[in-house]
């Protein structure tokens, strides 16, 4: 599954259950079919308009990785 980054933020101040993971990047991806999904990032940080692919799913959360 591939798409492009619609928007992103790097979270420094996390909710209770995610404190140990901070900082982490939250993104909204526009998939190639036009639908949008909220997810996280594996590997290097991404910017708006970067091409990404679905790398893995953890606890039902899609993790995207930058396409080289």
């Amino acid at each position: 599954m591939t798409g492009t980054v619609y928007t992103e933020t790097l979270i420094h101040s996390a909710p209770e259950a995610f404190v140990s993971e901070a900082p982490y990047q939250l993104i909204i991806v526009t998939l190639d079919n036009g639908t949008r999904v909220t997810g996280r990032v594996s590997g290097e940080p991404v910017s708006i308009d970067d091409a990404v692919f679905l790398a893995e799913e953890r606890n039902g959360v899609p993790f995207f990785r930058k396409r080289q």
Partner: protein
Amino acid sequence: MRPVGIIGIGKTPFGAFPERDIRSLAVDSGKKALADAGIEAGQVEAFYLGNFAGPSFVGQSHLAPYIAGPMGITGVPCTRVEAACASSGSAFFHAYSAVAAGLYDVALVTGVEKMTSQQTPRVAEILAMAGECSTEGRAGATFPALFGLIARRHMHQYGTKKEHLAAVAVKNHANGAMNPDAHMKKVITLEQAMAGKPIADPLNVYDCSLVSDGAASVVIAPLDGVRKRAVRVLGIAQTSDHVALDRKEDITVFNAVKSAAAKAYKMAGVGPDEIQLAEVHDCFTIAEIIAIEDLGFVLKGQGGPYTAEGCTGLKGSRPVNTSGGLKSKGHPVGATGVAQLCDVALQIRGEAGARQVAKHEIGLAQNLGGSGASAVVTILAAA
């Protein structure tokens, strides 16, 4: 529908009050509003409470009669309304509807939140429940993060800069420093606002509103011509949008604010150019920029430069958040909507002291819930 007005206002100071519980705050503000209106508790025919998360923050449910009883209000409908940060704006909308329709002659609307008894990560978790828990919450989103996503996109589409966000914080802190009831009475510089501790990029701590305790109340009644200092409700609307940001086509627009504003302007028979002052929902600096765009005060994308030029300052052409806004006055979530109405009413009555603006016949309050799924827009005018 008959003409209806706000005939009394009452607020507690906003801040961190470890010695105060949710009920004492709410009761204080309600009694002040009743005294301001010259109304006895026994005359109140309906009580509406705006509260977002009392059960999570303080472990008490059934909050409307829990708070109304000690005010001396029993034997009438007591209803809690929840619409995230728009809870008390929505409570006011429903109270207004019932009074305007003739169901009641006197209604009391109170907004309250007691937040500071919880630690910050738990507060973040409770607030995040106003977003889409199954996707945003599960991925670790916080409210600052949702508005960080919005800010990044607004910067990308319109060239909005960090300096523009900081200009909102500097202005609202300057106003709040003159508000005796504000949570943070502290003037800040643009340099300070730019260099705050990062929270959710591009937002830093100075882009975020405060976690506060506080309550605000208003008494509403038909305008029968004998009310001293009454402020007329000229137009009001509440509308909605998707909760999840990823369901929206363009996250730089608050569709609910646009549609509520259009309805409220139509009902009031005025347009955005006639609004002389406004209290808008600056839960984050970017939210004020988007609000002034979607209310039609400035063209889409121009909210940042308009703010940086000083147009929304106390001496600007259209003062916005003369109270200090959520940023400096404080943001006890459930109290905010009614507090905004109190602040607009105070300006219209000419009682805003050092913050009083020159033109104050007609003002607007805009209350936002979540990342934009609920919005209430109210237009008030001298009676």
